[in-house]
């Protein structure tokens, strides 16, 4: 939920290394924040544990995809070979489990994969063309050598002044307010000189 009075997206902080970011994530998680994220140029081992991630719900989509695949395969084979165009081949029954199993398997696997990918895109709200973190120009380093943590303003525990203090305490550098509107995000250079 975006507060109507403000277009503040959140508070970003940069960290010096992957280890520092991992430590910061543990501290933020310990403070009970829910809406926040970390950004790094590469996956950091143990980060999902540090952030307190629960089991991903992607597997639910995988299961749905798999069940759809199995059903489609059964209907496809049974309808075509036993109902619509029954034909005796090599004295085998119109419908038999043996030759169907590989097709059951293949379609189950295929639609499981589709379900997984689609579920991933749905849950991560991808694809999207823009994200407020890109309004912060230091953030370009996230694909090179920068390690970032962003607390979002929609988090119930977010409070501009105290959250800034918290980020400073845990070693955040270049702490910056990020706005939804690129025009509003302060120039990072000015931010640093006034801070």
């Amino acid at each position: 939920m975006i507060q109507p009075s403000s277009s503040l997206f959140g508070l970003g902080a940069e960290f010096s290394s992957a280890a520092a970011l991992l430590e910061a994530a543990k501290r933020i998680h310990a403070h009970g924040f829910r809406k926040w994220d970390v950004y790094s140029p590469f996956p950091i081992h143990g980060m999902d544990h540090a952030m307190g991630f629960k089991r991903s719900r992607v597997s639910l989509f995988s299961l749905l995809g798999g069940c759809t695949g199995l059903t489609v395969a059964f209907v496809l084979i049974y309808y075509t070979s036993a109902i619509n165009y029954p034909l005796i081949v090599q004295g085998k029954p119109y419908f038999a489990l043996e030759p169907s199993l590989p097709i059951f398997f293949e379609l189950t696997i295929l639609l499981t994969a589709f379900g997984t990918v689609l579920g991933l895109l749905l849950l991560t709200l991808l694809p999207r063309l823009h994200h407020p973190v890109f309004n912060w120009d230091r953030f370009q380093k996230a694909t090179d050598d920068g390690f970032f943590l962003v607390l979002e303003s929609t988090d119930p525990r977010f409070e501009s002044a105290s959250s800034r203090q918290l980020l400073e305490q845990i070693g955040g550098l270049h702490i910056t307010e990020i706005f939804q509107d690129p025009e509003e995000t302060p120039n990072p250079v000015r931010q640093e000189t006034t801070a």
Partner: protein
Amino acid sequence: MSHSPSPLPSAEKLRLESLGILPVLFPLIGVIGLVSAFVWGLMTNPMQLAFSYLFAFTVGFTICAGALFWTLLHHALDADWSVLMRRILESIASCFPVLLLLFLPVIFLFSRELWHWMTTDLSEDPLLAWKRPFLNEPFFYLRCGFYLLFFSVAGMLYRNLSMRQDLDGDPRITLRLRHTAYGFIPLFVLCLTFAGFDWLMSLDHHWYSTMWGVYLFAGCAQSSMAILILVTNGLVRTGHLKGLFTVEHNHIMGMLLFAFTTFWGYISFSQYFLQWYANIPEETWFFVYRNTGSWYAYSIFLVVGHFFIPFILLLTQPAKRTPWRICATAAWVVLMHCVDIYWIIMPNLQLQQSRHAGHAAATTGFHPHLLDLLALVGVLGVLGHTVLWLLSRGSIFPARDPRLRESLAVTNWL
């Protein structure tokens, strides 16, 4: 490494007194089972005894062969996670000299009861005449000796060199075992495949399946991984490997058990599928025999119990990370492995019985016999005692293996 490494654990002996009655139970049931089976069986029903004994021997043999496979694979792939459990695998794989002794009754007492081709008149069986260059008694015994000698040498070599490394910590032993594994794996595959052809497939010498070796192998790898899970967790329960064995090790072993459960399902389906499709008489009889009478229900139970039940039981992460759940599944898998070997061997007993009674070869259905149980308990008791004795001879894990630290710190990134 930036942080100072924690000191490596020192060697740990097996404390037999913590194992309760097991050290007494194994030799006891081994002797009682084998002696009673032989006395009773030879007096009343030698042919039943021959097949029951082959069943029990094959269960023991496949579990030990699987342990040898995992040992060789560990070295060939330079694996780190399995170092902590490797001594257990090496000890199981070193049982082959005992299996060699246990095979002697098969050769000297039972061979002509078991293998119909040894007593068939060639003029009545032109198919067998074609197979005679391979299926003749001298060559058969020579091959049996070769398989069991190879397995014995390989198993003992890996255990002995690993035990020597416990003393001197020489990393060159690790390299030497790795390089040996590259040569041993093809030999292992050939020996296991042809042992399967000779001992099991030739029980019905008209039947053939090109997937027989890999089918047997799938059962070997799956059942010995289940045994490894049971032994390791048993040791942990009795206070061994304290602070060394973690839930991550159980998770990895559970994943491998899951993988080989799926592999067995894939291979056994493929074998059935190809023969169902081709519909060649010599091939389909194998399945016709096993779909006659109550064997049909037994075959369905095999498919459900050997594949579907462990597949579902092992699907989730908590199932692999909770000790009692993974152990219950592993015990079930071992039981189903026995069911599988029984399914392979026992219909052939009924074929032999009907041939001896002068009828056409046919099966009648699943008729368990007490001799099956006695022989199985006897062979497993002897092997269990051997494994405990081998384990108590040194440290229960390779204490100076260069990869021990990696094995202790292993994690699955969830």
